């Protein structure tokens, strides 16, 4: 203790002399909590790619400091592990930011920790609405399930669709999608004629699809987490000739996630979805992003919405630190993050000054084959969409 005091005093003096928070040659440590192994390892890979791409573009530095990324692997939804990792990152690694967070339960679990430690946390994917209200130190650059579900309802009404049948996976986000969609649809005079919640581990969708076929609704809206469920559902849909039966199908962008789209194959053709990012987005910034992505990581992996939010997460951290002049104290950074606006490869985005949640354009896309590969082609959009679950309050 005695020995340390002069050092601290000297440091304080140095700060005073220079008149700036003289940490210019320090490293900025950022903790990333995500899934790097197990069935969801793709999420971690995509996060990593987005982060690396941002750092590469900016010479490995944010606000003039060398960035050190410390990765922690939760291998899927594991709230207890996420909480422990958050503690380790804060106490042992002394990180200035925590980010990553692919699963909502993980984000909720570390909320009390980051609140206590006042460590700014930037959510790169977890899409449960209340995450940003669970701590004043959490901001989000991804999306909420409600935010992408409700515009689909509005768009359907605009097309004159009056009736729909809702199919969701039976878990928290599925329920969120269902509620947000139904609310928006009912508000515009639409009617949900039926609904079904399928178990998460459901090998065969034939029974559900047959049930829908017999109910003969005008249209169907579905929400499944990206992965094996949407292709299985789409296969059953095609096989049963639902299109020929005149039933139109709509979904959120999870159904045609760029990571899985090629594997889903032609079953996805023509499907109309709503989401915040398609890698075929036509802006100059996105084309550069995609080109850099392929140049750096090869063509084996397509940038998905995980990569883009990771890239934006780094951009948000950089933007906030620019505003605070490099000061990493929790309250100042959060104040700077709120209201931050910048151009993302997906389009203009903003972190809501009131809620710390993302405000962005939600696109309506159709799955098409362009130049031999399946892509989500955007053809309509809703600007500045806020999280409807919070707007309602």
């Amino acid at each position: 203790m005695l020995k340390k005091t002069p050092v601290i005093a000297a440091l304080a003096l140095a700060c005073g002399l220079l008149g700036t928070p003289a940490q210019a040659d320090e490293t900025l440590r950022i903790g990333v909590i995500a899934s790097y192994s197990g069935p969801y390892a793709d999420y971690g890979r995509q996060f990593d790619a987005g982060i690396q791409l941002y750092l590469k573009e900016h010479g490995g530095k944010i606000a003039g400091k060398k960035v050190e990324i410390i990765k922690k692997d939760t291998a899927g939804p594991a709230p207890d592990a996420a909480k422990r990792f958050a503690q380790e990152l804060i106490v042992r690694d002394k990180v200035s930011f925590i980010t990553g967070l692919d699963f909502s339960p993980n984000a909720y679990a570390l909320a009390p920790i980051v609140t206590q430690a006042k460590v700014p946390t930037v959510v790169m994917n977890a899409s449960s609405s209340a995450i940003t209200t669970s701590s004043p130190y959490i901001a989000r650059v991804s999306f909420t399930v409600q935010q992408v579900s409700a515009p689909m309802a509005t768009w359907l009404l605009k097309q004159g669709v009056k009736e729909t049948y809702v199919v969701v996976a039976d878990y928290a986000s599925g329920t969120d999608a269902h509620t947000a969609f139904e609310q928006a649809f009912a508000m515009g005079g639409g009617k949900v004629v039926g609904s079904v919640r399928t178990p998460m581990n459901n090998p065969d969708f034939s029974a559900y699809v047959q049930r829908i076929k017999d109910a003969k609704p005008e249209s169907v809206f579905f929400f499944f987490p990206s992965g094996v469920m949407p292709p299985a559902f789409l296969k059953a849909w095609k096989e049963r000739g639902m299109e020929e039966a005149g039933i139109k199908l709509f979904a959120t962008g999870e159904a045609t996630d760029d990571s899985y789209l090629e594997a889903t194959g032609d079953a996805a053709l023509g499907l109309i979805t709503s989401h915040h990012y398609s890698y075929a987005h036509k802006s100059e910034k996105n084309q550069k992003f995609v080109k850099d992505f392929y140049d750096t990581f090869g063509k084996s992996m397509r940038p998905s919405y995980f990569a883009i939010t990771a890239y934006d997460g780094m951009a948000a951290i950089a933007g906030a630190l620019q505003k605070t002049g490099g000061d990493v104290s929790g309250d100042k950074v959060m104040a700077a993050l709120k209201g931050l606006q910048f151009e993302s490869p997906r389009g203009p985005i903003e972190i809501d000054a009131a809620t710390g949640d993302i405000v962005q354009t939600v696109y309506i896309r159709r799955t098409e084959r362009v130049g031999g590969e399946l892509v989500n082609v955007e053809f309509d959009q809703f600007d500045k969409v806020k999280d409807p679950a919070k707007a309602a309050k």
Partner: protein
Amino acid sequence: MGIVIFDGIAYGMLLFLIAVGLSVTMGLMSFVNLAHGAFAMIGGYAAVTAMNQFGLGFFPALVASFVAAALVGGVLEFTLYRRLYRAHPLDQVLLSIGLVFVSVAVFTYFFGPTIQAFSPPESLTGSMSLMGLEVGRYRLFLIVCGFAILAGLLLVLNRTRYGAMVRAAVDNQRVARGTGIHVQRLFFLTFAFGCGLAGLGGALSLGILGLEPSFALKYLIFFLIVVCVGGAGTIIGPFVAALLVGIVDVAGKYYLPELGAFLIYVFMVITLLVRPNGLIPRKGL
């Protein structure tokens, strides 16, 4: 109604096709082989690789899936499984579940964590009408395969010398050995054959299930249900059980979607309470 039963039968056949290999390794050879799904996964990946990388057709790919899974099964039998035939079932569980996790990691490493693309041949896509029902061609194909494999297995086990030797060795190893049966080689072949069947089932499942590295773990519960409900050690038992499970599952999800997911577990519990050794237990149990 008709279509629900048809779909149930098709789904049941899918379960049977994957689980029948487990009935051979776990039932006949009494080895608690939880790695069964991993062998099915090997078959699935072999088929996908054969089709997408080497441009083979679906049917040659099915052969490749059987061969690949049987080869890996044979190698593992020789190196690992053989040592644990007489071990406590818990040791067998530990070994085989360990193999599952290894396989998940290996496939993630080589093929990535995402699902594999698969498109069935033109002749098996879409639907056709059969006795007034619009049935999926692929599902019909599964049903045909199921019956073919059932018939083939019953023939081999009950009518051939090889089948008689397997039955003898399973019932009483010492006496079988005494009569000059090379039990070790027999078990090696049978195990590899069971794994081959798993691989074939895995490849056939491509049209319905998605193939990704967690396949081995994800569907394990369904294979176990089929073998336990059916009665380990027979072929006809798992067949009947798979059909019942398939029909109960599909009908439950169709008529009672709120309960649908649980019905097969209720069905399993009740069956095991009433018939603890399965619907059609092996003689002598």
